[in-house]
């Protein structure tokens, strides 16, 4: 869904306001600690019947695993969330917007538009967003990737019939470099800042908001009335039920989304 002009303005103002305070120190990875005692695992007996077995888990395993596995490091996936009340309000707003508007609209749209047309349209819109990737690759100093994105855009816009076919991938086996604004800001050393949820956009952070701004300004879709909305409806119709599944699998969907966002961005920032 596109953000309305007011939202864009609000975000622009906010991101300027917080830009100076955004550079919070990033989590430094802990040095890996001593070798784990072998006895913890070796003494365990294979247990297949979980109903009858005792837990079979060493109390220290958690710390030992975490020391060398940053996914299990407790600071991984964590972010300061002082505006949790505000963020939850927008989380619920987005949730309702999904169920009451986006889902019925994209379901109806999916029924009238053949899948092949929707997949083609998705390709075309991804192709149109090439400037976002070209600029972010360049800003990150990845000039070769930036050049390849220019080439992809040329191939797909011509041989790929306005981008409806991803000829660069299918015929020329070219790679795709979806570099984004948040990565660009991360490269400058900017910290994530606090967690923020925006209406229509979803999970973000201070840095993520700045990144979103870069991506929005450089995206041609922003300047085509209705294009971001079509993009969102089209993508949702091609990926139905996903959001519901995430909710069903979660004990606390708000926390699940927040943690997922942060883990995903941490990984992307390290690329």
């Amino acid at each position, binding site marked *: 869904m596109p953000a309305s002009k007011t939202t864009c303005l609000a975000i622009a103002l906010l991101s300027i306001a917080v830009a100076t305070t955004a550079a919070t120190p990033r989590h430094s990875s802990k040095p890996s600690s001593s070798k784990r005692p072998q006895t913890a695992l070796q003494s365990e007996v294979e247990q297949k019947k*979980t109903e009858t077995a005792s*837990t*079979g888990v060493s109390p220290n395993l958690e710390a030992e695993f975490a020391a060398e596995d940053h996914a299990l490091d407790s600071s991984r*996936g964590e972010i300061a969330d002082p505006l949790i009340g505000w963020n939850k309000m927008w989380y619920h707003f987005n949730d309702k917007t999904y169920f009451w508007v986006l889902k019925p609209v994209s379901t109806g749209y999916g029924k009238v538009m053949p899948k092949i047309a929707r997949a083609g349209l998705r390709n075309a819109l991804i192709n149109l967003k090439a400037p976002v990737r070209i600029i972010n690759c360049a800003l990150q100093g990845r000039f070769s990737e930036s050049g390849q994105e220019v080439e992809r855009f040329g191939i797909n816009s011509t041989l790929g019939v306005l981008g409806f076919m991803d000829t660069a991938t299918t015929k020329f086996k070219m790679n795709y470099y979806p570099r984004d604004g948040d990565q660009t800001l991360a490269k400058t050393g900017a910290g994530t800042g606090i967690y923020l949820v925006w209406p229509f956009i979803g999970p973000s952070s201070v840095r993520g908001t700045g990144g979103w701004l870069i991506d929005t300004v450089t995206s041609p879709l922003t300047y085509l009335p209705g294009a971001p909305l079509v993009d969102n409806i089209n993508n949702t119709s091609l990926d139905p039920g996903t959001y519901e599944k995430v909710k069903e699998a*979660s004990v606390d969907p708000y926390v*699940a989304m927040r943690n997922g966002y942060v*883990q*995903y961005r941490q990984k992307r920032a390290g690329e």
Partner: protein
Amino acid sequence: MKGKLCRSFILAGLFTFVALAGVTRAATLDLSKAAGTPEGLIHAAIEQGLAVLSDKNLNQAQRREKIRTIMLEAADMNQMAALSLSKYKSKFTPEQFQQFTDLFSKLVFNTYIGHVESYNGEPVQYGKTQKIAADRVRVPLTVMTKDAPVPGEFSLYKKGTEWKVYDVRIEGISLVNNYRSQFNEFLVNKTPSALIDQLKHQVSENASK
């Protein structure tokens, strides 16, 4: 952003179960042999998983039951549950922990099984196994979906002589880490039995869908 994030979550589930489902055959044939190396377990899992998913002689219930049985064999659900609870595990009695582990497995399984069943033969590429510690490794692999390659990793540890999965990560999102953030938030001011009740409720809701 939201869509991309959700897709990662779903793929995490798909990953887990496509792979773990795979061990169904391996288990009946020779799971212990496959589990002798981490790559062996994962490779066998994927290959065999595809075989189970494409076995037209199985009805849905049989297929799901096979996949479930094997998930419990290939992954160390006790370990995943313990890591997900983190420091709060000590608040659980052994009985509660067992009950929790069982419900946790069911929650994850019920949620993703439908997506696993819609798996459509997307090619899988394996990466080079990374050693984290003497008895822990990560096996990276990429599912080549039609949209884009989706990178993921299985984390395995050596339990006795066999390798077991203790975490799965897609696009950097660790399943264990994600659940841990939720359970920790929940258990800050609620009891283990409240968490068990909540899981029971969700599992029965999912099952009725």
